């Protein structure tokens, strides 16, 4: 009963969520290391009562099955801060130690905590290749972070930033603050390419997002007019019966 309305409704419900994804992308346009997300749609087929056979018709409802992150590298921004690093290759992640286990991030805005330990913006220690936090002394002088992640000061080498990659980065789950979590085993990237004094901005393309937003809005209107016309049709049918 009323399937055209319900099909339109399924479209409207997914469009609203798609707008939320677009809104989140635009809100995070200037978030360091943010990856734009896309909604993926799928059809959910339901056989009609008349067409159960081979040639039978099926009704296709819309479902949003997944949000996918666009893995491409964001625009690189010069900040001039010694402890800002950008991962120039697409697949690398820094390893961050949290109380609930290792997390991964592409946000290279690092700083020191009160003990001189190298931490992320949230204050979580960043791991070296030895799996230990990196500590800088107040007397160490200017810090140099080489392209392969080697951190050195006037006092010599302090260790190398651990950069890892995953076989299926799309399966990583985003938690807040640009951190990602996964059950997969990380694999070390032997030759990372790290840029000091630079941050990776978001890879959100504002023009595409605005264009998608307009499309969503218009599609929503179309779904409504379909519901309206269906309503009219039922009304006419009722009138015909009544008369």
């Amino acid at each position, binding site marked *: 009963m009323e399937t055209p309305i319900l099909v339109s409704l399924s479209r*409207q419900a997914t*469009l*609203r*969520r798609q*707008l*939320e*994804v677009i*809104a*989140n992308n*635009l*809100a*995070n*346009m*200037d*978030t*360091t290391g*943010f990856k734009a*997300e896309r909604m*993926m749609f799928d059809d959910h087929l339901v056989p009609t009562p008349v067409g159960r056979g081979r040639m039978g018709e099926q009704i296709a409802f819309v479902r*949003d099955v*997944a*949000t*996918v992150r666009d893995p491409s590298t964001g625009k690189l921004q010069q900040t*001039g*801060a010694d402890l800002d690093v950008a991962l120039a290759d697409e697949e690398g992640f820094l390893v961050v130690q949290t109380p609930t286990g290792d997390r991964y991030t592409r946000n290279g*805005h690092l700083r*020191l*905590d*009160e*003990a*001189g330990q190298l931490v992320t*913006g*949230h204050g979580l220690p960043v791991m070296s290749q030895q799996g230990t936090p990196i500590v*800088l*002394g*107040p*007397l*160490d*002088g*200017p810090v140099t972070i080489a392209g392969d992640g080697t951190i050195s000061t006037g006092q010599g080498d302090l260790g190398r930033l651990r950069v890892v990659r995953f076989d299926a980065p*799309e*399966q*990583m*789950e*985003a*938690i*807040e*603050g640009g951190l990602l979590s996964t059950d997969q085993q990380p694999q070390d990237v032997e030759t990372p390419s790290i840029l000091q004094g630079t941050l990776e901005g978001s890879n959100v393309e*504002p023009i595409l*997002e*605005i264009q998608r*937003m*307009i499309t*969503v*809005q218009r599609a*929503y*209107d179309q779904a*409504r007019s379909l519901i*309206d016309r269906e*309503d009219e049709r039922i009304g006419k049918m009722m009138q015909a019966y009544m008369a």
Partner: protein
Amino acid sequence: MKALSIAATGMIAQQRNVEVVSNNLANMNTTGFMRRRTEFQDLLYQNLRRVGSTSSENGEVVPTGVQLGLGVKLAGVYRIHAQGNLTATDNPFDLAIQGRGFFQIELPGGEIAYTRDGSFQLNAEGQIVTHDGYVVQPAVAIPEDAVDVTVNQSGEVLVKLQGQVDLQNAGQLQLALFANEAGLEAMGGNLFRETAGSGGALVGTPQADGFGAILQGFLETSNVNAVEEITNLISAQRAYEMNSKVIQAADQMMATLNNTR
């Protein structure tokens, strides 16, 4: 309509961004000012279909899931402690630090504040003070009959007294270092306060390992780059506009909904 509140978080974030940019531009000519940068973070994600949840009895796993982000927040405003340009002033009490370190200033309450603004003067007792009259620590007094004052790169204050040939040592300036300079709290007036985040001050002689050198007759200008700030301002303004467009779109979609018969 979560899109409304998500776009609102975007607008608030960009507003903060503009505030930080305008503060940088306002302080373009402030001695020893360090430019600030806003750092944003994405907010919590709502899992409509969790990544890795099983989709059938056979144990197939959802590869990506539906995660809806809830917007953006300001994670922090951090200072960029890059060296500013040095400008020659030829004033003997204008001191610039080339490299790392802060001058120590004693505030009226006895608390020690830290600054890189070295535009100093003398007070009635001949002590080196800031333009607010707070004494630079360790206190150095210049004798009244001094005709010339030299501060060398390692912070020794040497005075030439009336009628004498050799320079006399009047005192030694010291600098303070912190494990985490970015953790210092700005108090205004170019002064910083030590916090739990910065770690304790480590006091030492200029030009020693890790400490910067002192340059007499120079001032460190702000490290604000006007071109960069203006481009940041433009992009922040446009980002603000785009987020407001999302609000409009969400509003119109709700209007569409209301107009459905």
